[in-house]
């Protein structure tokens, strides 16, 4: 199946063929901010810092579409010479945090990452699929944007880019492999719970986590007041507390509104680290 639209790629046009998608690979960019009032979630890359770095390393404009790979496993074949950069969760065999050239026929293969969960592959020129509502991001909650990648997909490579950055290697620490501690800021319904109740507890990341949210396992937190909450707007980093008493941390594909109280928000600067959490990894909150 070709994902090219319009006239289709010419014989010499740059393209990447998906040989294997791994557990989940999607196309992501900065998402659809500004449309939440229409019920359209933001979506976009989960670890935005890694995504932005990948684009910078290949001289792309901010917001160019890249591939978000979940737990490695992606194999891509270049159909013409392209420059790519791989960032985020470090996968064996793939050059990390540095631009590299794939010649026509070369295969980029990502093994399972040694830490973290999400790896970003940017290509100079960006992935040129057709945007939907101003973005090429795959939104798994709403079904907007391109479907997750499958073997055989041919991804057109765009031709808009700036100069190469003149950086051979960006110094970036690997995602935290063990206990992660992130800062939280009060949420609108913090008074539904005992003061400070969330802080210091150790949670484990559930295997039910996805691009919508990181589900946490641990000792349930009790509400100190009864009642139902009319649905209200939520944004990135919300720690929503369903009746189970176990928080859900909202990531990129979160719904625009929710009916459970938000006890706190993860500080925006710490969210990218949360997007790299693996099932089973431990997480604590600090003020």
């Amino acid at each position, binding site marked *: 199946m070709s994902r090219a639209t319009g006239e289709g790629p010419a014989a010499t046009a740059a393209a990447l063929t998906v040989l294997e998608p791994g557990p989940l690979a999607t196309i992501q960019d900065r998402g659809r*901010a500004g449309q939440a*009032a229409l*019920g*359209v979630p933001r979506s976009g890359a989960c670890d935005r810092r890694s995504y932005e770095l990948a684009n910078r390393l290949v001289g792309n404009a901010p917001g160019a579409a890249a591939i978000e790979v979940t737990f490695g496993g992606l194999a891509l074949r270049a159909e013409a010479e392209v420059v790519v950069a791989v960032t985020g969760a470090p996968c064996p065999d793939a050059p990390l945090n540095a631009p590299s050239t794939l010649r026509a026929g070369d295969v980029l293969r990502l093994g399972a990452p040694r830490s973290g969960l999400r790896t970003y592959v940017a290509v100079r020129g960006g992935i040129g699929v057709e945007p939907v509502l101003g973005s090429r991001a795959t939104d798994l909650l709403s079904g907007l944007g391109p479907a997750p990648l499958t073997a055989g997909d041919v991804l057109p490579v765009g031709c808009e880019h700036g100069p190469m950055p003149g950086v051979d290697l960006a110094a970036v620490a690997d995602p935290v492999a063990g206990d992660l501690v992130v800062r939280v800021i009060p*949420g609108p319904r913090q008074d539904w719970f005992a003061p400070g109740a969330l802080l210091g507890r150790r949670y484990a990341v559930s295997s039910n986590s996805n691009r919508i949210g990181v589900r946490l396992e641990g000792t349930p937190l009790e509400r100190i007041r009864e009642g139902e909450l009319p*649905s*209200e707007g*939520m944004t990135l980093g919300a720690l929503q507390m369903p009746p189970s008493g176990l928080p859900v941390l909202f990531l990129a594909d979160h719904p625009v509104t929710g009916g459970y109280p938000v006890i706190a928000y993860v500080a*925006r600067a710490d969210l990218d680290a949360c997007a790299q959490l693996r099932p089973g990894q431990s997480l604590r909150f600090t003020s």
Partner: protein
Amino acid sequence: MRILPAGDHALLVELENLDEVLGYYAALAGSPPAGVVDIVPAARTVLVSTDGTDLTALTRALRAVRPIGGGSFGGEPLEIPVVYDGEDLDDLAGYLGCSAEDVVKRHTAEDWTVAFCGFSPGFGYLTGTGSWDVPRRESPRTKVPTGAVALAGEFSGVYPRESPGGWQLIGHTTLRIFDQGREPAALFQPGRRVRFVQADD
């Protein structure tokens, strides 16, 4: 009005009721403060998220908003042709103690306003001029077809695409409420006035 914390990039404005939300949202969306990225109205609240972190300045700006009476953006109402053949129409009429024709008359006679959106892209929660109080179905349907026109609580709505749903179905429209290839994709935007018009099938 209360302004509640919502992380380091947003604030949540809590208001008394839906009418206040409509008036506040209309005023705020008409002239949003600098740096505001998204304004999300809901049943009792308006979430305001920003691209920066100067929440002190934003708090001041939000306190200074003067709600617009009525809350709708004015303009001609969007007309939605509806075939009133919904599976729940007769049961709902029974619950309300009237005939199916009465439900249709009431639904088509009212001025509706999109109060807020959510649930899925383009799904609007519409409030009427009357006071509806419709229970949700005891067990939600796993599949509600695209274009189904429905009632629940004080709201009416149109399903923009096939999805699960617990609202009472009273009819259907062939109008595409949400079409990602169209500009604008969503016909329902908060503040938009709407009329339902009975159509033959």
